């Protein structure tokens, strides 16, 4: 069964919006600090991995801008970081797809750490932000979040015959 590109586009952005919702959902401070995965980044990375011709660097940039608007960050910080992360996923697409999910989540953990470091650096240089070490602790939940996101979105992709 062949779906129109528009349908694929719609489902991808719907999943991005769901991730945005999870990203800004209020949680108790402790959970918020250590156990909130980077939902939007990971969802965008899934689509950059699975359908790089539908969701590439430019789309990831737009997803990052949406997060900037929702977070109240200077417009462009998350945008550029999402775009660069997506570039990594798209460029190493063929290699990454052959890895097991656990291997992938280790790589994604590295990617999230790099994202957080560069985002923190950008914010403290240009925005006078105060970056604490506990901020980086939150990246380790990626190890659990990535398999979950991967299997959920793969199910969505296969059920709806997205390509």
């Amino acid at each position, binding site marked *: 069964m062949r779906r129109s590109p528009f349908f694929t586009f719609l489902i991808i952005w719907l999943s991005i*919006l769901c991730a945005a919702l999870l990203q800004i959902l*209020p949680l108790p401070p402790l959970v918020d600090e250590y156990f909130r995965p980077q939902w939007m980044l990971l969802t965008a990375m899934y689509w950059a991995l699975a359908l790089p011709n539908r969701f590439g660097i430019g789309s990831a940039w737009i997803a990052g801008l949406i997060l900037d608007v929702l977070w109240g960050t200077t417009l462009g910080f998350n945008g550029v970081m999402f775009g660069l992360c997506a570039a990594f996923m798209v460029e190493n697409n063929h290699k990454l797809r052959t890895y097991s999910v656990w291997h992938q989540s280790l790589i994604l953990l590295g990617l999230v750490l790099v994202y957080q470091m560069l985002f923190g650096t950008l914010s403290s240089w240009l925005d006078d932000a105060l970056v604490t070490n506990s901020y980086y602790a939150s990246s380790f939940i990626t190890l659990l979040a990535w398999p979950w996101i991967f299997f959920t979105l793969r199910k969505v992709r296969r059920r709806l015959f997205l390509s």
Partner: protein
Amino acid sequence: MKTIFTRRFPASVKIIAIVVLSLLLVLSSDSLAPARQYLSTFFSPLQVIASAPLEALDNVSETVKSRETLMAENQKLRQLELSISDRLLKLEHLEQENSRLRAMLGSPVVTTQRKLIARIQSVDTDPFRLQVVLNKGIKDDVFIGQPVVDEHGVVGQVVEVNEFSSRVLLIADNSHAIPLRNQRNDVRLIGLGRGDVHQMELQYVTKNTDVKIGDMLVTSGLGDRFPEGYPVASVTGIENRGNEIYSTIRIRPIAQLDRIRYVLLLWPELATSDASAPEVLSQ
């Protein structure tokens, strides 16, 4: 059928493009405020949905409160109201007298003629910013730079506004500074946020300045942003290091910045001769 290999631009071109575009966005972030306003209006339903579960939970806990609890609460509030209205009577008299005297001196005082109660929308924000989202926006005349207080003291100022909600930067944020006055001796100071809701700092206070632990600091009204006289913080620690000119002074915000739920938006205005009683609009 499109394949992976039909890319219009190579990745390197795209990467350079997004980096340049993002740089332009960051550099022109001030002039992009209107565009940002529309974008955040567009995405504000997400914020409403995200904060809905917690608000529903709040409502539930409100409805299942027992009759005794409500009665006790009611009684306490009545007593509080009585004591407050007593103080208010005196205050109004003093305020009128003060504004008459000020008028004689030719330096009218800035008062707030309009206030509005707003509720904090519980949504997550930038990990490095101390900011909250309010459920009032342009449709309620909220503007950028507007002072926000709660029942104890100053909370912060509005930094971003869209049709239905607004974003408030708390006074304890790392990028925030607020002009202050020591209530005891009128010394002017600057309160600097340090990214910690329980602690702020006073900047550039020489060692011989008269500041003591326990001093109450109020807004000085300088800077034309916060109206004069609202309590902000109390001094909790003074440290003098041997060879430095300035002493390190720690202050503690009066407003409970980590557990605010309702705040008051203020519309400061220059006092006119026929000062009417400030009206409080309920939400």
